[in-house]
């Protein structure tokens, strides 16, 4: 044998799936929702998406080089994903400096300050959104009407209408389930078209990049509480409306399932999903905000280490002594 042989510890074969592949797959799964958002709200939403993604890439590159890390890590797609998700959480007509400052905050404060990919406590995109919400609440709560509403320029979101009506369902005010499904309602760029989001989520399920634990328990919890408590009387709420009307579908499938900020084990994920659901319901029902998905997820992000502590599995054949 002339050349030396390579020697290492096994396993000597590896699954071809990599972090990079997963991140870009999630980006791809979000594409239908972007197309729908741009179609519904016009070109400005496309500019918002581009600005957010570009700012996220620039911020990540800058911080990586300041920290003397491998700048090539930008190719893993995680910064792109953060920018994309932030844009999806913004109203379509915001001025472009909003997605830019939001993305920079998300990457620098939300992610890199904690140590970068894998170390952040909070979902970076939602951190950015919270920052924008607190800093410029008026921009964040002015909503453009969808393309099918000929008479209006701005409108309230269905959940806001519902809240103003004292829990009365917005169904009465001319929004149908079909409208909610297709995205014919005011709202954030990426959250309105439920069908497009479900399409992307189905792709992630098929590829096994996400499991049912968080999305299912999250949505089921919101549906249950909304049905029981969010109607004109007990057990008279519309579960379907509250599941589709806000940012729940986007949040449950694409934000709450973020690997880094959600619990490790299946059991932990169930606890996390239920927690998100309960908090979302509480915020929607009792706080001053009509929508609570982003804050619910952020709060549960903070709980994740504790959930992990109590839900990690005991090993196979564990015997109590």
């Amino acid at each position, binding site marked *: *044998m002339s*050349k*030396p*042989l*390579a*020697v*290492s*510890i*096994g*396993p*000597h*074969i*590896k*699954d071809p*799936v*990599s*972090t990079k*592949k*997963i991140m870009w797959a999630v980006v791809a799964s979000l594409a239908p929702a972007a197309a729908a958002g741009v179609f519904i709200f016009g070109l400005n939403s496309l500019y918002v998406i581009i600005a957010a993604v570009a700012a996220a890439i620039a911020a990540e590159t800058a911080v990586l080089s300041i920290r003397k890390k491998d700048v090539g*890590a930008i190719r*893993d797609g995680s910064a792109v994903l953060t920018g994309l998700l932030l844009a999806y959480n913004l109203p379509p007509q915001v001025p472009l400096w909003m997605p830019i400052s939001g993305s920079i905050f998300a990457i620098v404060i939300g992610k890199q300050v904690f140590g*970068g*990919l*894998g*170390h952040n406590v909070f979902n970076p995109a939602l951190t950015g959104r919270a920052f924008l919400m607190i800093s410029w609440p008026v921009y964040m709560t002015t909503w453009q009407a969808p393309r099918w509403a000929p008479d209006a320029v701005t409108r309230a979101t269905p959940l806001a209408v519902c809240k103003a009506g004292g829990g009365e369902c917005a169904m009465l005010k001319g929004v149908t389930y079909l409208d909610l499904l297709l995205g014919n309602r005011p709202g954030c760029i990426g959250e309105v078209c439920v069908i497009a989001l479900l399409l992307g989520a189905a792709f992630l399920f098929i590829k096994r990049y996400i499991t049912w634990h968080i999305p299912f328990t999250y949505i089921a919890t919101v549906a249950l509480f909304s049905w029981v408590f969010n109607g004109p009387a007990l057990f008279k709420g519309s579960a379907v409306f509250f599941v589709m009307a806000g940012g729940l579908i986007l949040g449950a499938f694409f934000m709450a399932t973020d*690997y*880094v900020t*959600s619990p*490790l*084990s*299946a059991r932990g*994920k169930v606890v996390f999903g239920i927690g998100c659901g309960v908090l979302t319901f509480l915020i929607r029902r009792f706080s001053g905000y009509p929508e609570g998905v982003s804050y619910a997820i952020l709060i549960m992000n903070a709980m994740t280490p504790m959930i992990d502590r109590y839900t*990690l*599995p*005991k*090993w*196979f*054949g*564990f*015997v109590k002594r």
Partner: protein
Amino acid sequence: MSRSFYGGVHPPASTTIASDRPIRRVFIPKKVIIPLSQHTGSPAEPVVGVGASVKAGELIAKPSGYISAAVHASISGKVSKIAYSHTHNQARVLCVTIESSGSEDQEVKARAVENPLLLPTEEILNMIRDAGIVGMGGAAFPTHVKLSPPKTRPVDTVILNGAECEPYLTCDQRLMVEKSKAVARGLEIIMKTLGAKRAFIAVEDNKLAAIYAMERALEKTEDIKPKTVTHRPKPGEYRREAGSITMAVLKTKYPQGAERQIIKAILGRVVPAEGLPIDVGCVVQNVATAYAIYEAVYLSRPLVERVVTITGPCVREPFNQWVRVGTLLSDITAASGTFVKEPKKVIVGGPMMGAAQYSMDVPISKGVGGAVFMSGEEIDRARESVCIRCGKCIEACPMELVPTTLMYRVKKEMLPEAKEFGINNCYECGACAYTCPAKIPLLDYMKYGKAKIASLERKI
């Protein structure tokens, strides 16, 4: 019953080519280097000196304690050297080198035994011990010890392990196809020595030929009444409840062939983490071991040869071959045209748990089922990136450990904490490292952590 277990991964099988072709006739090398410690336990003591003429099948080293195994000459010739040498697991052990002049009779003489099932258990165990049989699935634990549990620990079930879950390897599969009757006879002997009333032959559902062959073999055994087989078996399906031996078709999943996992899959019993299969009334034996037991008890032949798979992306036509113990790997592959390209990594064992070699001049020992020859891309250890907490390692770990948490503990040298999180229950199957999208060499961390903990505990 689930026919499966928690965790596990699905590496691409790559087993088909070698599994379709018959096992090649026994390979007789000019020289063998026979390690005297091919088993778990104390090394055997040589009973021949340098210069002695030995016949194939003759005893060359006797067991040096209860947990030890006899070693026999695998070829006829002259003992040319008794010295320390490297084996495939990088240990330096005493080895006996035998060289043949080429003119000796290389056949291992057989002496048929009439109705060995009627012999007393004690006598059968002695035959197994004297034949130097060890577990041939890899762990190489002396079989006569495993077959004589204390009287206080009754065994009700024997599982014959034909799962062969390592990708690429097909030696057990081919053995079941070609020597199904002998394997079944071996299983009957195992059941008799243990006093077990029932047994399962466990085969993964991607090895149909082996399943059918073993079934046909069972049909010929007298106390078994077969049912007609008309359809493809599915995992979780008992093919036949016949007599005392049952075929169990298992889901194809790595590591299905691990003792604890195969017991869980078939019986639903959970072996205590710090215990042994015997704690749940169970003994698991590999099919190759059962075949060796048949040879020892029915034909009085010691364990001097076994089936070895030569495979991998570098091998032109992967094959199985009967190989005499102590044959150098390089001798088996010496024929020109074995390789399509020069191997860059040579693994003795399977690609998941096998050991990478520094040299191809390592002897095949009793527990080695194959060698995988790899090139270029498969040997590339992609650069380790940061854990993104995806949880795939937790889903993959058959022992339900949390590899990522353990990895962080080991990295920071927090060894007592790693122990508390159960690192010592890791049996190094490598499923976590296989599945990790961040390409973290989790198994390296597990091995390092376990070794470090062991060395710290020795000092105390």
